[in-house]
């Protein structure tokens, strides 16, 4: 065994630390070729794709953020418009209420005036009709009474002037009595 180790150590061919020059050459060339391919093609292609993907993702995020900002701006605007519209509606409602009250008051006033006018007119008409009735009654009652008295008395009380005077006096008395009773 000892002999074997010594012979292995002295014999260069079996010492594992002594390289085979051709193997070194093959590894050197092989690695150089690989390094060239990786540097020239593999890394640039991967990096290009990484960059594109990063750009796509970041672009997407930026786009989404923009859309979000736009959406929230629109929402804000709508809210503002809604508030404005509510204020406007309230204002209009208030105005309408005030106007309605105004109109109602006007109408009430007008109606009151109208009714007063109608009442006054009715009073006046009634008064005038009563006057007419009184006048016609005065004439007719006088005639009837005179005719009646003439027939009853049987004498010619045809002196119109005197009989008219008597009737007038009688009616005036009567009116005075009525006026006294009314007071």
């Amino acid at each position, binding site marked *: 065994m000892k002999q074997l180790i010594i012979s292995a150590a002295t014999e260069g*061919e*079996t*010492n*594992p*630390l*002594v*390289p*085979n*020059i*051709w*193997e*070194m050459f*093959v*590894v*050197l060339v*092989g*690695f150089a*070729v*690989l*390094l060239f*391919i*990786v*540097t020239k*093609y*593999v*890394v640039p*292609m*991967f*990096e*290009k*794709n*990484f960059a*594109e*993907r990063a750009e*796509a993702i970041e672009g997407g995020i930026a786009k989404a953020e923009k859309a979000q900002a736009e959406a929230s701006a629109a929402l804000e605007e709508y809210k503002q418009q809604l508030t404005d519209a509510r204020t406007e509606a309230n204002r209009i409602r208030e105005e309408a209420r005030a106007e309605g009250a105004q109109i109602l008051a006007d109408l009430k006033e007008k109606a009151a005036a109208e009714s007063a006018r109608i009442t006054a007119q009715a009073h006046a008409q009634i008064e005038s009709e009563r006057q007419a009735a009184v006048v016609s009654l005065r004439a007719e009652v006088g005639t009837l009474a005179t005719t009646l008295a003439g027939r009853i008395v049987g004498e010619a009380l045809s002196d119109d002037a005197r009989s008219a005077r008597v009737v007038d006096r009688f009616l005036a008395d009567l009116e005075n009595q009525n006026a006294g009773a009314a007071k």
Partner: protein
Amino acid sequence: MHLPAILPWGQAEGFSKQMLLVILSVVIIATFFVIAARKQQLVPGKLQFAGEAAYGFVRNGIAKDIIGGKDFMKYVPLLFSLFFFILVNNIYGAIPVIQLPSFSHVGGAYVLAAIVYITWIAIGVKKNGLKYFKLATVPSGVPIYILPIVIPIEIISNFLVRPVTHSLRLFATMLAGHLIVMIAGSGIEFLVMQENVLLKGASVLVLAGSIAMYMLEALIMALQAYVFTLLTAIYIEGALHADSH
């Protein structure tokens, strides 16, 4: 130690299986990533997704995290190539029939470590000028009377030991894994050939143990690719920011 060559067949020197596998690994990696990266879509397919995940692991998990800053992209191709070159060449050891991690032959590990060694020294000198060697060997904030001890240690650890450990770490783990698989294989064969039934049966135990070792080796294969790349990134970062260390 070395297998006989494929071309010319059976000779000690010549075109070996290891060389064929190294060339094959370059073809595999280049083909896979060129195809995965070629059909670029914003929403990736399965292949593109796998390619991007692998690429992103090195780009973000190693280059960006360790080197950082604005200029880490410059070193992504190197780190990416290193990681997948080592990974595929290591994984060979876990594939039946192939079962030869390329870096169980020390030459490849020397070459890669040398490339990294030259790269980080070049970066350091380019960034800081010749003052870089002073920055890399004279730590700031150390009392003057300790410097005679510290400076030789720094020179040895940074400029002499570093490339050696960097290459041998990869080589030794791969060789050890390769040896374990070989020993387990021949052990099983030896035990099965025995007349004694108990010894024959013991081969099952070796088989079970070798499967566990196989899993462990598969883990180490991936891990060493990561460690090698990570250390490369750390060396580059150290060279870039030598003035702040």
